[in-house]
């Protein structure tokens, strides 16, 4: 069973992937909820434009998304240079860039799940909360948010899984640097490109399958308990 043991480099790739996917999901979450809320409940000019923009990474080839990120968030890019100069945040060839790429790719899935959950909340319950004295923020915190928890969890799991598997945009944007931007898929890809890399590729594939299964299982359990608590009226 020795061949099952992961080498230090492989461990690094696994840990990095988990870190990147976790950061991508958690940082994306508030934006995801905000955008989903705007799309589900808002009525404003440019709503369909926003919707299209959010969904775009789902349809574009990942390489194209990665290249756009490189142009916009790269060292010379308009946003990238501003962030680097003013906030000291650098994306290019850093793990943060991998997290950004993974987050952008997972964002449409997260927004879609949360948006569907918000749309399924009975707006009449929110009206009722208003007549009881709750302003819009309180209505959201005490009524809407608790009712969309299952949708939020689903969205987070989908985003996390997408981030774990993201390859095209990441490798285009931040390349494939071991220890910095080499995530699980990039590591597997690297193994397949060198002679005798089959074993390593297989080990990481098994790890990948295991993590995906765990994520799926966790979402099932969470959704189930959340549903039982609500007991559909």
């Amino acid at each position: 069973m020795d061949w099952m043991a992961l080498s230090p480099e492989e461990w690094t790739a696994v840990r990095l992937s988990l870190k990147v996917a976790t950061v991508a999901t958690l940082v994306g979450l508030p934006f995801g909820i905000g955008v989903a809320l705007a799309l589900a409940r808002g009525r404003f000019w440019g709503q369909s434009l926003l919707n299209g923009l959010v969904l775009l990474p789902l349809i574009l080839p990942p390489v194209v998304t990665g290249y756009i990120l490189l142009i916009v968030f790269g060292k010379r890019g308009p946003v990238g240079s501003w962030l680097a100069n003013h906030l000291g945040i650098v994306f290019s060839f850093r793990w943060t860039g991998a997290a950004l790429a993974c987050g952008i790719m997972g964002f449409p899935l997260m927004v879609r799940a949360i948006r569907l959950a918000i749309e399924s909340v009975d707006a009449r319950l929110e009206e009722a909360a208003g007549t009881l004295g709750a302003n819009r923020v309180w209505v959201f915190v005490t009524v809407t948010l608790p009712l969309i928890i299952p949708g939020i969890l689903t969205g987070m799991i989908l985003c996390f899984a997408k981030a774990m598997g993201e390859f095209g945009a990441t490798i285009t944007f931040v390349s494939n640097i071991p220890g910095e931007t080499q995530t699980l898929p990039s590591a597997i890809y690297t193994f397949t490109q060198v002679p005798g890399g089959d074993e390593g590729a297989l080990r990481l594939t098994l790890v990948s399958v295991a993590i995906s299964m765990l994520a799926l299982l966790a979402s099932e359990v969470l959704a189930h308990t959340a549903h039982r608590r609500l007991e559909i009226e």
Partner: protein
Amino acid sequence: MTLAIDIQHRLGSFQLEAKFATGGGLVALFGRSGSGKTSIVNIIAGLIRPDHGRVVNDDVVLVDTARGIFVPRHRRRIGYVFQEGRLFPHLTVRQNLLYGRFFVPDSQRGEGFASVVDLLGIGALLDRRPGRLSGGEKQRVAIGRALLAGPRLLLMDEPLASLDEARKAEILPYIERLRDQSRVPIVYVSHALGEVARLASTVVLIAEGKVAAVGTTADVMHRLDLFALTGRAEAGAIIEATVERHDAAFGLTELRSRAGLWRLPRLDLAIGVRLRLTVRARDVMLAKSAPADLSALNIVPGIVTDVVGAEGSTGAIVEIKLDCHGDVLIARLTRYSVERLGLAPGQQIHALIKSVALDRRGLSGPMRGAAGADAEANET
């Protein structure tokens, strides 16, 4: 309390133009489905912003489009009991009840938690979730939730419409207790004549988006020209009476009103309790002389005050209004009978009503007073 409304609002092709002012007690917005009643309460609650007009509750201007005033719903302090309850499914009954209290300063919370729970009989439900409640229980919790937010006015939009007859009968006494014991004025939307006759002190009759009549319940109900709007089949007279005596041998109860003595199947109410009797026009017969050897137990002398054809002067049905020592009675007869008897205003007449026509459905609970409410509670 005074509620004054003067609004115009367009909903698609439907034009709402409502203007009325009411005092305290229970005000019924009464009219057919689709007449605009719910839109009016939604405007009062702040769920709809009217195109033009003013809404003033207790000297607080809630809406004045001319001056650009629109108080948002969460600052109006107007309780709203919706037709479908709208309880929060993720909270327990107790949390639902306390929800509105969180947003109200201590000094303005009005009724205490324990007294509201007691008033509505929901003490056993507190730890359950709404999904596990029956329709009637949900509605009682919804009433409690609105009441505990310390409202200055309570709106109830057809709170019984989604319930079956048994559940309605279960809740009506609670609404009567609320009306009699709580100081919060109530605006009650309904298309059911029985509910309005039983509960309301004032009626605002709404037809096709406009106010057709405003007045005390008896005044509006007794207007023959409004029968087409109030619902002819159930229409009748409202009589306030007091329980005078129980006849154990025959299982009868005797009530006293200005018109005289009424006998009807036994009611389990204490002597002295005041209640409303609805005498449907279709249950009243008329005779020119006091009949003898008749099975009907209630024979009330009176004077004809009004004779109106229900469908104009040539229709088959005629409605006759009587004055019986201050009580109003209404009888529905065929025009054939009216002409055969030669009925005309000013004539002495006897009204005959079968005791069994005065069933429970035609009765309301005690009119006021805690003692009366207790009597009603004992009976259920």
